[in-house]
């Protein structure tokens, strides 16, 4: 074969390839039109009911289903019921991706609600982006992500820390001891905290990370005792946090002098820590169970009536709950014949909703404008809200990275 002939053939093949790829959007749009054309609207619910993170994700699963049931009982959307399709990804990131694919392709879900950990969200990310579907993620997280196919319902570092750090310095002092589990979330939060501290004249006396699931904190507590910091800035999660709090209390360190200020401790952890050991320490979050609004009273009452009087609501389950209502409000803005995940996303931008924490707004970068609060734990296991931000705080997922902004067109680098 002569070189010219070869090039010609390659060109022809290329042209055919072009033609077929041109026809692809038409094919895709015909499949898209098939979304939610049945008698009901299928939505995926992807929280682990087994495995390591099941403890927390179970409550998110419950909160999501509660909202779906309430919406259905009130007549559904456009006269159609929401049909939850439940998958159990068993706390394994690869299984999340697999089940998300199943929900989006086989079950033709218009949206999937799921994930607690960043690892599982990042596993689902390529799937939801490839299918141009929508993944509703309720957890506070470390930011530094800007997908057009994920609706972020939780706080990012600037929403948890902008009010908290100046308040902590003013009330307790500038010397911070950072303790976190060894993974991306604590490191990014500490990163942002350090940038705030350097602006405000604070200092980090020690920064350390323990393995996930670490349960003996006697060395850490000895170090804290020796360093005598003003504030323990904690991003320890789950069982590690329970062990840390109990041992901190057993060591008789005084929360009035050296309070633990946590970004991750919620009503769930405090229930296991015990009110006595948790009392006097602080958490920063947009929502606490004891928050006083009519929306929250209704949420807590319905949640307890449905799942048991000993259950607690917390800052992630609240977001899991209101995100379903945001989804419903977005659907209502659309004509029933044009329901697609991308249309739902576009309709959701700018939506406001009276959530249990206050009126929340979806930013064009798909994160949520929230109401940061600082709560002090009481011996009854509930937090007393000491400080509530005066205005709704906008999400800046790249706050710690100068020159990068997450916008409605995706990530923009200056």
């Amino acid at each position, binding site marked *: 074969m002569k070189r010219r002939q070869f090039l010609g053939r390659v060109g022809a093949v290329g042209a055919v390839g072009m033609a077929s790829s041109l026809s692809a959007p038409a094919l895709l749009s015909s499949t898209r039109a098939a979304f939610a054309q049945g008698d009901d609207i299928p939505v995926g619910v992807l929280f682990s009911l087994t495995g390591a993170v*099941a403890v927390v994700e179970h409550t998110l699963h419950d909160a999501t289903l509660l909202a779906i049931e309430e919406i259905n009982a009130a007549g559904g959307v456009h006269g159609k019921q929401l049909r939850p399709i439940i998958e159990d990804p068993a706390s394994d990131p690869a299984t999340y991706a697999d089940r998300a694919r199943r929900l989006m392709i086989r079950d033709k879900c218009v949206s999937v609600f799921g994930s607690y950990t960043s690892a599982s969200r990042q596993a689902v990310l390529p799937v939801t982006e490839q299918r141009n579907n929508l993944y509703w993620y309720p957890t506070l997280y470390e930011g530094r992500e800007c997908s057009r196919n994920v609706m972020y319902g939780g706080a990012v570092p600037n929403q948890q820390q902008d009010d908290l750090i100046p308040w902590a310095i003013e009330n307790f002092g500038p010397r911070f001891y950072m303790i976190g589990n060894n993974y991306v979330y604590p490191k990014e939060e500490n990163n942002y905290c350090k940038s705030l501290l350097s602006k405000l004249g604070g200092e980090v006396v020690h920064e350390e990370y*323990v393995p996930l*699931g670490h*349960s003996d904190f*006697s*060395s850490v507590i000895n170090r804290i*005792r*020796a360093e005598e910091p003003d504030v323990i800035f904690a991003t320890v999660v789950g*069982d590690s946090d329970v062990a840390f709090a109990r041992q901190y209390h*057993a060591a008789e360190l005084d929360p009035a002098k050296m309070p633990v200020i946590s970004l991750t401790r919620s009503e769930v952890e405090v229930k296991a820590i015990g009110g006595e050991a948790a009392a006097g320490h602080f958490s920063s979050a947009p929502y606490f169970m004891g928050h006083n609004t009519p929306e929250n009273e209704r949420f807590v009452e319905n949640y307890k009536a449905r799942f048991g009087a000993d259950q607690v609501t917390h800052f992630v389950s609240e977001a899991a709950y209101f995100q379903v209502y945001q989804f419903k409000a977005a659907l209502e803005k659309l004509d029933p014949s044009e329901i697609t995940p991308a249309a739902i996303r576009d309709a959701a931008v700018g939506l406001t909703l009276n959530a249990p924490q206050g009126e929340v707004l979806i930013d064009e970068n798909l994160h949520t404008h929230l109401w940061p609060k600082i709560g002090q734990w009481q011996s009854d296991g509930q937090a007393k809200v000491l400080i509530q931000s005066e205005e709704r705080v906008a999400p800046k997922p790249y706050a710690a990275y100068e020159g990068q902004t997450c916008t409605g067109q995706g990530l923009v680098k200056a």
Partner: protein
Amino acid sequence: MDVVFNQLFAGLSMASILLIIALGLAIIYGTMGVINLAHGEFVMLGAYATWALQSFAGLGVLAALPLVFAAVAAVGWVIEKLMVQRLYHRPLDTILATWGIGIILQQAVRLSVGAESRFVKGPELLSGNTEIGALVMSNYRLFVIAFSIFVLVGSWMLMTRTEFGTKLRAVIQNRGISECYGIESKRIYSITFAYGAGLAGIAGALITPLFSTIPTMGTGLVVDAFLVVIVGGLGSLIGAASASVLIGEATALLSAVMNDTLGRIAVLAGIIILIRFRPRGLFPSDTRN
């Protein structure tokens, strides 16, 4: 200097917890050659039994200890009768079988009690600290250290100073000949397994006020317990005791010099090197061939 003393105490406290968890495993492993992967779940059952006794019967951790021991020993006895006894001549299969039992126990607790972390209140009597100069020691941790020594001595007495212990050692040395002398080896094995399980239960009860009580808590603990048994040498009580102190102190001191993550890595690396040069552990017992 204060830091060193405080870390030494932290190491001792860690060692006492390791010892009390590993002791039951060492006895079962050393005497019967059964690698009991369900050991961590026995610890977990002990913790949950303590929780149940506290929330439903109002018993404190200390008052619950004998009951927890009896309850978990009973579970161990039943498991030995139903499963482990049939597998003594297939040691490799016991690994798989006990692992399966572990999963069953874990899921049973998850289904019946729930997956979320449970709260157990520590004993009022032992709250607070004892301070000697700059050395601050938690009273509860002091108690755990004392109790682990008590259990160690108790187990040693049981093995060497009682008729049961003599019979057990005879069975370990030669099961066939012992049976010829009228020793019921099956019964001896059942009791030993139950005793080991009961000790794990006590360990579970003792750690609840410090750690988080969840269905998966045993998985991490059994790894530490195996480290102790392997470093100490199979079936040696003295080995288990010295290995726990060694591992506890090494972890505490190394994590003071570096941090908890690096400290842990250094300890594991040290154990690998130790096993390279002393493959049978520090105090290998010569009773089993």
